[in-house]
């Protein structure tokens, strides 16, 4: 880790977003992770996405569990709300916060240990319920804090730093998320910000459960020749189905790609995602197709990345529960407890 604070000076020519902030204004404390950790690149990508979307930092709640990944919310959005919860319990804390105040942007940051092992059930249920959030898993395939044992996402047959072969089957969180009904599912790589930043931005704009699995090499314990989550391996086996080239606000999109190569997806907030297809046959609106595509490519040892599935008409937990538009935490006492006359009326209607 680095001991000095990152200098306050910034490049004099840095651009400002609509709020007048530079990307430096979205930083947090200096990272205490190992030098070169993929998680730091994800941190930088979240910073970049929030800067580009001109998000007001105080409208964001970043919630995490335990692990290297779950330390990272300290390193971005220093002026946002944050909750570092119990191991694996990020999804339930996030769900509770979301129910209490539906107006905030929820960033759930977790790791493969936090989400695929101790918090696997929590992960499943928050996705299943359609909580409006951006759930990011910083997936390195090892338990870095305890010196690099295989995690539940480590591929069968991959080797540890000491040369031990993993004999357990891997959990593919993307496949599970698709199966559980997530309405925005993507996979990316910490070493490819040009793909990751627009994905995070699009996920934040999505209303519903957005899930992004980000392969993030562990420099200390999982970046060697036998690893399937190393920089070299991921770069060699990366099969991107599409790239998000343009993400704009409410302005009309002017894209000059050949017809049929760009697909425009309109989001709830009116923003649009322009998807440049790489695999012409891939349809990101086909959940079943996506699952098959994933399974087929996984069998070939390929890592499918890009926006894998999106349902532009998704609903979230609040719609399922038919809650009021006003965040619950701002409802006044007389609204929450309208008095005995109203109670009498309800009782009467049930008689």
């Amino acid at each position, binding site marked *: 880790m*680095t001991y*000095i604070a990152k*200098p306050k*000076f*910034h490049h004099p020519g840095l651009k400002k977003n609509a709020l007048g902030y530079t990307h430096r204004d979205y930083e947090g404390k200096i*990272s205490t992770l190992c030098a*070169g950790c*993929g998680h730091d*690149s994800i941190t930088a990508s979240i910073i970049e996405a929030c800067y580009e979307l001109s998000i007001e930092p105080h409208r964001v709640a970043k919630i995490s569990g335990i692990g290297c990944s779950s330390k990272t919310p300290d390193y971005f959005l220093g002026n946002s709300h944050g909750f570092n919860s119990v191991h694996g319990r990020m999804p339930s804390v996030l769900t509770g916060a979301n129910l209490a105040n539906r107006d905030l942007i929820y960033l759930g940051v977790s790791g493969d240990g936090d989400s695929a092992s101790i918090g696997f059930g929590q992960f499943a249920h928050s996705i299943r319920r359609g909580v409006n959030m951006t759930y990011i898993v910083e997936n390195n395939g090892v338990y870095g804090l305890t010196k690099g044992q295989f995690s539940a996402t480590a591929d069968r047959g991959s080797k540890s730093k000491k040369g031990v072969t993993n004999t357990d089957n891997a959990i593919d969180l993307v496949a599970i998320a698709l199966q559980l009904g997530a309405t925005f599912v993507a996979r990316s790589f910490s070493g490819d910000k040009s793909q990751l930043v627009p994905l995070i931005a699009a996920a934040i704009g999505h209303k519903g459960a957005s899930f992004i699995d980000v392969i993030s090499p562990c*420099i200390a314990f999982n970046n060697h020749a036998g690893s399937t989550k190393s920089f070299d391996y991921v770069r060699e086996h990366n099969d991107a189905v599409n790239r998000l080239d343009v993400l704009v606000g409410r302005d009309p999109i002017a894209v000059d790609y050949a017809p049929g190569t760009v697909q425009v997806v309109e989001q709830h907030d009116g923003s649009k995602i322009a998807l440049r297809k790489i695999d012409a046959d891939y349809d990101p609106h086909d959940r079943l197709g996506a699952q098959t595509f994933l399974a087929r490519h996984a069998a070939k040892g390929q890592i499918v990345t890009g926006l894998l599935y999106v349902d532009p008409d998704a609903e979230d937990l609040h719609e399922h529960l038919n809650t009021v538009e006003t965040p619950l935490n701002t409802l006044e006492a007389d609204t929450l407890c309208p008095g005995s006359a109203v109670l009498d009326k309800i009782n009467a209607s049930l008689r």
Partner: protein
Amino acid sequence: MKPTDIAAPDYFHKVVDCQWACPAHTPVPEYIRLIAQGRYSDAYMINWKSNVFPGILGRTCDRPCEPACRRGRVEDNPVAICRLKRVAADFKDDIRQRLPKPSPKNGKRVALVGGGPASLTVARDLAPLGYHCTVFDADPEAGGMMRTQIPKFRLPNSVIDEETGYILGLGVDFKGGHRIESMKSLLAEKYDAIFVGSGAPRGRELDIPGRKEAAANIHIGIEWLANVSFGHVDKIGKRVIVLGGGNTAMDCCRTARRLGGESVKVIVRSGFEEMKASPWEKEDAIHEDIPILNYMVPVAFKHVAGKLIGVTFQKVKAEYDAKGRRNLVPSGEPDETITCDDVLVAVGQENAFPWIEQDCGIEFDKWHMPKVDPKTFASTNPKVFFGGDAAFGPKNIIWAVAHGHDAALSIHKMLSGEDITERPLPEVQISSQKMGIHEWSYDNDISNDKRFKVPHRDKVVALKDIRAEVELGYDVKLALGEAERCLNCDVQTVFSTSLCIECDACADICPMDCITFTGNGEESDLRQRLKAPSAHPDQDLYVSSDLKTGRVMVKDEDVCLHCGLCAERCPTGAWDMQKYFIDMTHAGSTCPTKSRSAA
């Protein structure tokens, strides 16, 4: 772009903006670090080797280093490099033991004309090598313009005595009060080499109506300053007009304030902003209640019965032609006459070589300047060299020192039977500063402090005594604070392509967004694709060879803080912080003979 050749001595030298800008290439960050460590004597000796007059320059240098300082591109003000140099001089111990010892004479004799900074630098370089150096000066003491033209309230005699003394103590013969009247007879004395460092001793005249009639109260600036310096003049009228906008004008007006001038005005032809005087010297003058009036061209001296009563000025304004050149044209306002008792004319200096006969083998150009080789400082007479203001017209002390070093090298090579046009390469050292995992031999924690002000003597007290130094200099605490502002630009970011795994950690942590990983291209194209806009194309791009993904690493050197975070966050040691030290070639350096092409 081709991969950057960091082995070329100039590449990293350019990154050390201050050192690159300094004519003598003083290793600025190196001595600033030594000051921060309290090693004032060491800091002084680095300066002494490079610029010869640290105490004098620490008070009077024109500081080309400061406008170049990277800190000035990162925040409002550069590091106070000049005043830190003074700190080294003020707080050093007795350094006489560290000076070169007078060495046995080698039998070669060198005559130096003029006892100013250029000649003394030549003597400093040549005397320790055994040359018998004789310095001639018309004034009784050494120092030249440093002693005669710079007021004592800026540069006390004690400092001049000390630093000229160090040089004369090397076994240099100083012949004071000895004006050289004829080059021919000097040549006849069979010196092995002659160096002319006689400065630009003549103040430019202002030939407008009334100049002759009112002559008694019109003084040429540098002559008047010299007279004040030697005590021949000790008063002036109550109302004084100083004509001219250079540093000499600033010295004149401030001196006048101390000799009885109650209402002293500086009046310049150009606009205030375009004045030649250094901004800090203008500030100091204004602080002493001296107004600076601009866009006024003197047209006549008014006089009654041979007595000056004022100066008439035409009002002008600046107009710019299509090429952006400025012309001063009459503004149409009526002329203005400003009353005064005395006028000081400080409108420039000129060279004058009445003592060099035409048949000495020294050719002059159409501006009556000697033809001097800008690299070797040799004239058309192979035995005669020029330097300082005498070579290329009025500049300042630090340029004279730089010329002196180069001329001394030429003289030494010539008298060793070598080709003087072949200039030896400087010696360059570069070494890692890594001490531990995240520990460096320099303080990489960037200070956020603003530039510290140098304490000044109370104005009322200062204006009463012409010898009371106005600037008091930094104390130890202020000096430490100011030294910490230095960005250590000589500790270079060195990149090894083969070690890089393209994890982006350096690009993510860099506080200044200097580092970009992208596809290669032409420089103009690459500059468009950097993470942060490239505002200064004169600042180099550091480009790696192709990385594994086919991209290259591009670092814009422009606003790098040299904080070393890229190296701290690099998991493979592809980045390292390495101190670059360049030792400029002086006479007698034992050095490779391969000649170098660039500055």
